[in-house]
């Protein structure tokens, strides 16, 4: 058995290639994005071609910041199969100039404030058809620095 296999049993990442898998324990995991050296734009998820520069850009893989700003959110109360409502989905702006769609760790509106800092974490967001926990990136409200 490879190292880490026991920890990922019954768990699957929401999609391959978005973050390290299995996740490291030390909280160091970041989301992996792309940066175009041609025009300076950053992207998530990673992409091989810059939509602006096309073949003329050089795309470099970059780790994205673990802190961002909450732009807006909602509490989803009628959910697709596999998801357990209520849960909060949000748009989060990262300093790299990337906007992410992600779930929040809390669905309590009193804990969620627009234009306030949030920080990255990882956890279950749903169950797949085989009954595995689907692990993804989420954001939680953070204290201002």
């Amino acid at each position, binding site marked *: 058995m490879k190292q880490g296999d026991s920890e990922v049993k019954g768990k699957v990442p929401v999609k391959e290639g978005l973050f390290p898998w299995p996740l490291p324990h030390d909280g160091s995991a970041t989301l992996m994005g792309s940066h175009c050296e041609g025009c300076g734009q950053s992207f998530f998820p990673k992409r091989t071609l810059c*939509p602006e520069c096309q073949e003329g850009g050089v795309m470099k893989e970059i780790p994205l910041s673990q802190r961002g700003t909450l732009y807006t959110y909602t*509490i*989803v109360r009628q959910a*697709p199969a596999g998801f357990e409502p209520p*849960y909060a*989905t949000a748009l989060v*702006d990262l300093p790299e100039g990337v*906007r992410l*769609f992600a779930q929040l760790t809390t669905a309590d509106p009193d804990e969620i404030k627009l234009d306030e800092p949030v920080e990255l974490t990882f956890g279950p967001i749903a169950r797949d058809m085989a009954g595995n926990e689907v692990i993804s990136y989420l954001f939680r409200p953070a204290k201002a620095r």
Partner: protein
Amino acid sequence: MRDVFVMGVGMIRFGKFPEVWMEELGRQAILGAVKDAGIDPKKLMVAYCGHSHQGRVAGQRALKQAGISGIEVVNVENACAGGSTSFRQAYLSVAGGLYDMALAVGMEKVGGGLLPPNPEDLDGLQGRVLPGHYAMKAVRHMYEYGTTPEQLAMVSVKSHKNASLNPLAQYQESVTLDQVLGSRMVADPLTLLQCCPTGDGAAAAILCSRKEAEQSGRPLIRVAGSVVRSGNFVGAGEDILASPLTRETSQNAYEMASVGPQDVDVCECHDAFTIGEILHYENLGFCPRGEGGRLIQDGATEITGTIPVNPSGGLLSKGHPLGATGIAQVVEIVRQLRGEAEKRQVETPRVGLTHTMGGAIPGLEAGACAVHIFVRD
């Protein structure tokens, strides 16, 4: 480019018809438009069919049922803007002089429930639902401008009231503000009665040249503006309330028609969710940014108001059978401009506007936006 007119329109009542085939829904709408135009269907030379999920050559299948064959038929997919896009193509075929008479038909059978997300869509895998997408706009609008849940709900109250006057609407019952606010929460702050239903439907329009229109003896309803665009790239820093897509598409249509938002007498816009209509007020230019909530509260968009919006009941209450929606908007505007809208008639309108959005794509504002402007000459 030459002038193009709408000569005939037809649609079936929207709703759920599990026992009726899509081809039959299409047939009724097509023949409704043919009868309204008072033409021999053999005069139709081209047909554009907007639909999202009806399979291959859906247009040919519906036309066959209507007894029409052997003509140019093009099937058009542009998500919820498929019907409007087929109308645009029919417009181009006549404006460009290729044909003197063209049919645009939109139809859909969809069943019920939430539309399934595209499995390739990362946001969908993360639990994104369409009502949630609009709800996030609503939360931001409330935060920036103090728009209230009551103002959002008023859009639904107006919509249901108008639909109660429309025998072709899916829902024909009025609702109170308390009923809207008290219905099940779908995605905060949007309750169930603030989300459009799914359902089946079909609608058709016949477009023609000036000569054909004048010979018909029908009121002259001219297509004065016709624009379809796709959304630009968006990402960090996108202002989700701004909709450059609706702004630019409508701006182009206003310029083409030589009118401005202040000239519009009646509008059918893409009110899939209540917040959508409030944002469209602002982005179509009916009020300044941030004042959409006040516009509905002041009654300006009621049938009796200064800028009546969605007198048909709109997507929220008339229903939203994807591909049929854009053509159904045209049907309502044409009937309004002709003075044939009966109990929901706006007072002597001369300029009407339709606006449809379609297709959620991560990284683009939307798949498509269509704006058409109609003038009664």
